[in-house]
């Protein structure tokens, strides 16, 4: 929670309003937020530098969550923790499938989001 060295969160989510909400909550929590609209875009952004944590939506156009996770594993291995954001009823199973560290079911409490993110960014 040091302000000097803000942690970076990569948010992979296609819904603009939700992106705005999550960005707002995370920025208020002191995080730097990078945004990708789908898996492909996220992979492109990862080429430059790796974030401290990835917030991953499951259902997206072009490249969805699981595909992204698989590709990430191949290209970079597991370097950043992944938190899955999903509307699926069996969220924990979906999360386990992609090897995520945690999951948040939609809709979520901003406080819960923040506390989960904090847990995985130390």
């Amino acid at each position, binding site marked *: 929670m040091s302000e000097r060295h803000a942690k970076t969160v990569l948010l992979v989510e296609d819904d603009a*309003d939700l992106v705005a909400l999550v960005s707002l909550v995370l920025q*208020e929590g002191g995080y730097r937020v990078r945004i990708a609209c789908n898996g492909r875009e996220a992979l492109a952004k990862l080429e430059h530098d790796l974030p401290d944590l990835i917030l991953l939506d499951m259902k997206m156009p072009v490249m969805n969550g699981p595909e992204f996770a698989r590709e990430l594993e191949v290209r970079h291995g597991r370097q950043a923790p992944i938190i899955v954001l999903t*509307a699926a009823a069996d969220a924990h199973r979906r999360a386990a499938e992609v090897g995520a560290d945690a999951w948040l079911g*939609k809709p979520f*409490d901003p406080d819960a989001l923040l506390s989960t993110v904090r847990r995985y960014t130390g």
Partner: protein
Amino acid sequence: MAYAFGIELPYSLLVPVAHLRLLGVVDSSVQARMLGLIGLMYIVKTAGLIALLVHMLRPIEHLRRYAVGHPLQSGAGVEEPGSGAAPPEELILAAANAAYDTPLAFATVWAVSWALLYLPVTAAFYYIAPAQSPLDVQRAVALALFALALFAAALPLAYSILGRLLSPAAGVISLIARERGLSVPGRGYSLAVRLVILGACLAIAPTSWMAAMVLGETAGPAKPGLKLTLAIFSMVAVTWAPVCAGFLAGALAGPLQQVAAVIQKIVQRGEVDRLERIPVYFKDEIGALAGGVNAMVDRLEESSRRRRSYLAERERLLQDAAQRAAQLGAVLDNLVEGVFACDRHGRLTMINASGLRLLGLSGRSEQDGRMVEEVMDLSRVRHSDGRPFTRDELPMVRALAGETIVQEEQVLANGRAGRDVFLRTSAAPIRSEGGAILGAVTVARDVTELMELDLVKDQFIRVGAHELKTPVAIMKGYALALLRNTNDLPAPRRKMLEAIDRGADRINRIVDDLLAISQVTLDVLHVSEEDVDLRALLNETVDRVAKSASRHRVRLSLDAARPPVVRADPERLRQVLASLLDNAVKYSPDGGDIDVRVAVAERAPVSSPPRCDAALFSQRHGPSPGFEAVVSVRDQGVGIPSHKQERIFERFFRAHTDTRHDYGGMGIGLFLAKDMIARHGGRIWFESEEDKGSTFYFTVPLSSEAPAVDRQ
């Protein structure tokens, strides 16, 4: 009668000549006088005999006259008003007796009259011609033999003639008597006895005749004309026997021929009912034979009638059966379901049009007698989970073993249009009255469309619900973010934001329910297992509900002797509890206490829970003993009407639909609660009284790892 006496006539002329020769009368004036006397006597005798015969035949005449006087008209019958011309029984009996008895009786009288006729003539001869030498012994013996010969000759002759003449009448009368069901009393004369008597007569008559003649001719001195005398005598002796025999043969042959003709017709399978009855001419063996044949014809006619009515009945039944079979066939062919039947060896006996279509077969007749597993083509059938079928698993084969199969699902590969066909199959054995299995019947329904529709529908619900979640997340997220960050928010604004948050929660819960229900329907609902402290979960959920239910007092109390840590999916438990609390709030609109309790109890035997899906329970958790948490939610609301309590856990059932207590809802909360609790190995039930309130209970097994420490 004239006929009878006509036959007698030539003998009547010859016999007196012989008699005169026997007496040795040569004087022609004496001869003339003697003949005159004989003629006179003969006329007297004949007149007497005719009178006697007429008397004896009177009953027959009465019957004839009765028949003529009572033609077949109603009203004429005095005695029996119903049956018109039917003659009285005693008349028939008397006539029958006369017809049967007259021949012998009258023949006897006639023969005796012949034998005795010449006694007075002989006596008169000695009166007319006193000059004659007195009657010596030889001539007396000759006269006696002469009388005997006449008796022996006349008896069979008369009997034959009369028998022949009266037999038609006797026959007619016998038929009349038969129609009336009368049996004619009186003696019958056996054919054998009659033949013996005839034989005796045939022997006695010519012998004694010749003896008498020889004795007569040798009694006095030789006289002229001996040759003539012998010739006359011989002619008499030789001719009468064939005449007798002829009549007798005729009397015997006629009835026998009729009997033979009837039998011939029967043998040739002629129309049995067109046969006439044979008249019984004599009460002898032939009569008995005719009677027997008549009885036989009666029986044949009766059995033919029975056979005809049996055949007609059979024809009718066959037509009935054919019609019913046709009806059944039409019904079966127009069924949507495929229907198959087989015998107890598993050979196909019936398949309807839908069945042929389902299996993609053509030509029903080709399928008859094929084995079921061939027709159903084992290689194409799979279980719904993809396993291949063995022969013994086929519903039809299991039904043959006595099992009844209800709505099992199979997949038929490469069915209609080359696609997989989903079948829902029922099968049952066909049993005889004694319970033996005669075969089996299978009804298979193509549920492919239904399954596809279900899949599409659930897909739709899943995707739709999923799509709803993101906007809900945005609403809820912003509302909470605003509430969190702006401490100086005016109270009304804060309330608005809280309302937005609650609304988002409600939408979210409905979406969750819809998702869950589609998963339950598809049986893919997943229940995670982790140790959950019920106290924390209950606290959290009760707090949330208490916030929104301003008019109610929601109280939570814990009676447990040890911490209620259960093995469960916290999300699902939250869903169940939220459903129960929502209902409690919703259906106690006037406020009141809502009590939530949790206790720990020893797990009850599986069979005892009143409204638990025991099968699902034991399938997942087995009947292992242990402890369970019992959660109850009690309200003081409107309660559930008793007649609706049975259905309260059904999908989409709403107890208060369109009543004044209809506060909305989708009727899925309790259905899901029951399913989820069952998946946890728990039970759910309720007690409810209208206008007093309801208490819902559910149990969840305690985690076995949970430390069994007493509450300190």
